[in-house]
């Protein structure tokens, strides 16, 4: 049991560990989303057909996207997107509590989440129950009467900077 033995054994062991680290990197890369999944993460949605106070649901990166045209008389908010004179709420339709899909109750102008009773107003701001924050706004870029989800435009950057949404 000399020191030298420990030394050689340890040297070999550490060197092997180095190799294992390399293999771990390859393993991590394997676990990453595929390039085709990432490049499929852009969806263009035309907002112009939406009608006031009628919820439209679209899909982006597999998640529901809520589009709600705000009535002309509704109070202004920083959370809206302005496109061709219209004001729209565009949010990810997943409850910020634990991810269920809230339903829109048009009479009450309110989103209600059945899972644990969370509520949001027509601007997606949480008003009751366990949800910790307003519905998230997806990265978007305005292009004509459409938004391209997945790309980031200046309007989105501004909302992000103002802390109106988390990055999703």
């Amino acid at each position, binding site marked *: 049991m000399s020191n030298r033995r420990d030394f*050689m054994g340890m040297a*070999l062991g550490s*060197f092997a560990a180095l190799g294992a680290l390399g293999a771990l990197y390859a393993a991590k890369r394997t676990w990453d989303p595929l390039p085709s999944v990432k490049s499929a993460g852009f969806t263009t949605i035309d907002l112009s057909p939406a009608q006031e106070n009628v919820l439209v649901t679209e899909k982006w990166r597999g998640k529901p996207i809520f589009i709600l045209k705000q009535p002309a008389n509704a109070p202004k908010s920083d959370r809206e997107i302005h496109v061709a004179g219209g004001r729209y709420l565009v949010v990810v339709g997943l409850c910020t509590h634990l991810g269920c899909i809230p339903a829109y109750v048009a009479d009450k102008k309110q989103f209600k989440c059945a899972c644990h009773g969370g509520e949001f107003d027509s601007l997606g701001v949480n008003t009751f129950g366990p949800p910790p924050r307003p519905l998230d706004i997806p990265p978007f870029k305005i292009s004509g009467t459409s938004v391209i989800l997945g790309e980031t435009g200046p309007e989105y950057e501004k909302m992000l900077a103002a802390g109106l949404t988390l990055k999703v």
Partner: protein
Amino acid sequence: MKEFKILAVVVILSLITYWGVEPFAHSQMHKHVEGHNFVYDGAADIAEATTEKAAAKKAFWGEVNQIAKLPGNAAAGEALFGTCMGCHNGAGINMGGVIPPVLDHAGSLYDKKYLIALIKDPAMASNVDHKYAVTMMHPMGAVQAMVTTPQQIADVVAYIKAKKVGKMTPQAAYEEACGRCHANRYGNLTQLGETPKFKTEKEALAHKLKVLDEQALVEKYMGKLPPDLSIMIRARSEHFMETFIENPQTQLPGTSMPRVGLTKEGYEQVKAYLEETGDPSKEARHAIGPWVILFFVIFTVLAYLWKKHHWKDLH
């Protein structure tokens, strides 16, 4: 040293087995075909022709070699090339079984003598004359009535060789040379070119129908649908690919695949595309491989030192 003797026995027996089941067995399974370095002078066609055909082939390629010596006039060729554009216009319309190729890079892609031969007699040039009683039945047969004299042929070819050249991407080379008959699904290509993204399932299905129609036409023309080439580069040896593309008849006698007449440069581009879709990890393999091997060399040296330490006072 005894262990080295044992190692030698193990290595030699393993190598003999390897040699037997790999290089030797493959040399026995596949007939050997000489490549001809992308020179198209008819020598191979004449050599492999049946006796009744040999004379005609000899005469044909003799004339081709003669025309190749004529000085071509590119300016005169340009006017004649207009007649080619009647079909080779990139409109993507099937004519007689297949969509005529775009000729934007024809001067770089195709060999000069091959082009001469092709304009003179498409069936002979592409070595599929066994399929046609008369060349006029070939989808491009009509060219015989349009570009007729040796000088005209020389002029058109001179024009193509002077003007229809330029840098092409591997994908462009592939699409022009092979893509009208062979799909490549890993490259997102069908016989109709790149498949666009569709918004609705209906649009996607409508496109699919168009592809199926085109494939049916190609199938009727070729006798069977030419295979998808996505990973052909790994399914066939390099040697097979090269000699097959030079002259399909040598590897698959009787095949309806025409000779395409690629220059060496053109072939390299096509091959680059086939590697892009069929073997994209090649570069990474070559980049990482040496490091992994180096790692294990050092590992082995360390292990040897460790072993030596433990074994030194055993004997």
